[in-house]
């Protein structure tokens, strides 16, 4: 029995010291020095205050801002401390009701699909360029800005596919709304 237990205890114990403490702590130190912004959560600041993370979506309800995708987190949308999806299946009546309601709220179809469906994380920082374009008239009216000016801002904030190939074209809602506030 000891012939079996001694190596098991020793190997698991040493791995715990090495892979559970020494390596991750050293790795955390190196990461914090080499990539301090990313390692610390890619925070965005305005006037010296943290307004969010460039990677996390946040809730916008005001007519003056672009709205992110629907979020299924509880108790409030875009709760980054409790990420969640709706997990509703394709034949769910609750999902169909929610989609129908969102289509109506967006002024009728065809509505970009990302505006009518909840994301996987409940924290999706992006919307599609079509979704952003769909919202331009509302924001222009609420802010008293020419539509062309808001539409141009959307185009400037649109990220293409990474390296021209990977992922989908998208607009970061928090960055877009920060840029919107900065418009004079």
């Amino acid at each position, binding site marked *: 029995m000891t012939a079996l*237990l001694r190596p098991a205890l020793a190997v*698991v114990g040493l791995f715990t010291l090495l*892979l559970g403490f020494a390596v991750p702590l050293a790795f955390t130190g190196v990461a914090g020095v080499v990539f301090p912004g990313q390692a610390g959560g890619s925070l965005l600041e305005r006037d010296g205050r943290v*307004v969010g993370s460039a990677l996390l979506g946040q809730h916008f309800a005001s007519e003056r801002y672009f709205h992110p995708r629907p979020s299924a987190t509880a108790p409030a949308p875009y709760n980054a401390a409790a*990420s969640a999806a709706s997990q509703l299946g*394709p034949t769910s009546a609750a999902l169909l009701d929610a989609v129908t309601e969102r289509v109506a709220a967006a002024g009728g179809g065809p509505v970009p699909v990302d505006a009518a469906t909840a994301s996987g994380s409940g924290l*999706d920082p992006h919307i599609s360029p079509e979704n952003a374009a769909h919202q331009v008239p509302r924001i222009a009216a609420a802010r008293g800005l020419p539509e062309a000016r808001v539409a141009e801002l959307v185009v400037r904030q649109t990220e293409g596919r990474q390296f021209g190939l990977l992922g989908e074209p998208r607009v970061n809602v928090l960055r877009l709304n920060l840029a919107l506030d900065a418009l004079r």
Partner: protein
Amino acid sequence: MTAIGWAQIALILGLVVATAVPLGRYTAAVAAGHVTFLAPVERLFYAAGGVDPARGMGWKAYTLAMLASNAVGFLLLYAILRLQGVLPLNPEGVGGQSAWLAFNTAVSFVTNTNWQAYSGESGLSYLSQMTGLTVQNFISASTGIALALALSRAFAAGAVKDLGNYWADLVRITLYLLLPLALLLGLLLVAGGVPQSLSPYIQATTLEGGTQTIPLGPAAFQVAIKQLGTNGGGFFGVNSAYPFENPTPWTNLLQCWAILAIPFALALTFGHIVRDIRQGWALFAVMMGFVVAGVAIVYAAEAGGNPLHIAAGVDPATGNMEGKEVRFGVALSALWAVATTGASNGSVNAMHDSFTPLGGLVPMLMIQLGEVLPGGVGSGLYGMLVFVLLAVFVAGLMVGRTPEYLGKKVGAKEVKLAMLAVLILPAFILGFSAVAAVLPVATASVQDAGPHGLSELLYAYTSGAGNNGSAFGGLTADTPWFNTTIGLAMLFGRYGVIVPVMAIARAIAAKPKLAASSGTFPTHTPLFIGLLAGVILILGGLQFMPALALGPVAEHLVLATGKTF
């Protein structure tokens, strides 16, 4: 489906093929003890454990050593999870897990499953993540690879008892294969935006004046090994859909590659160990064929969108986006779903529960086919070799000749053991699902009504017994019933397969290695590749067809009629 979507899929799978060649050769060198750049650290392990790494072990000693190391790992992790509330590195003051949940979580990470009935950002301290889970992410992966090496050696030489030294295999795989890759991938992930920090959570004031709690943690290093070791347990609740865990299409490429890289490379490692690389490529081809076919079905289904939502006024252009992230879209979500279920990884970048019925069927079937396409690290290879024995047996029956594989005659005993290993999965998946479907204590956890509700139950036990870890997340799994039964499914799905596999290794190793003759059935040709694929599909898949017909297939037909539940 779009050309650029397929181009992304082809790029990632192409990378997997390209890296499998050097990785497969390197792993064979590690297994042979030829890689020694951390020799002083390695010797420290042997000295502390009183182990002679050069001394070979028979199947019993090897299996017992494996079980002992896993048992110690389980107890340590269970203790950390129960006591996390009073242990250090807990800036958010998270309390200890309940006994049921800690049992489920500890089993889950020791068996390389990473089923998660908790949410990382709210349910675990930094210590539990960094020290408890990360260590098991490494050890459970090396355990699987070590066992696959032992079985491979049984085919390599004639009439031997020695399958290698478990402790040497475990330490070498961890130090020379997993650790360097995890450090490299982890650093790339931090550069791409994945946090790595021990600071407390941050309170942000949103533009509309609300507050948002931004969780942090030592995530990047753990995410790296979770993918490389086909563990799949998310640092954050929604796994690699959480923007911190997988911020960009580039980090998505890295992680999707990491899910597949080692399991595919191990097929070639097998070829090196048996000194016939063509055998490795044959297994590789079967694995890749299923992955490509699976991706094509899921991509087509998801790109088609949900007909009910399209009728309700949703633009059909981009497909079904419920539960998906804009930055990944439908193509990268489809690829990931098949990769993570084929490879027994279980991490997700989109919610399988909200896929279209056929898009959700394929991930479930990829697990049910035995987690060999390419399967978990190591477990995929030894599972595939079990199917190989059955395939040569079927071929032998057809021509009336004693079956053999790589010069080893395959007898009744090996075939019985192989069938035992294959039957574990349907027994536990279908058995538990059937019981759960009629027990109120279980059905109370189901979120969706109709056929989809059955799919949620079926997926849970499929994921547990297959040691996958992904979920149809609508199921409320943190209950004593599910924590216990899925915990048992994970245990039997892992060790119930390993013990017959190691008994096969003993029986095969003891046989003399015969020279190939003109009557030998070659096992590297397209004919054999097709036969093996057929055996996997029929022997692995057929028994699940009735259950799948009542779940996703029924839902697919119902969806076309416009009915909702």
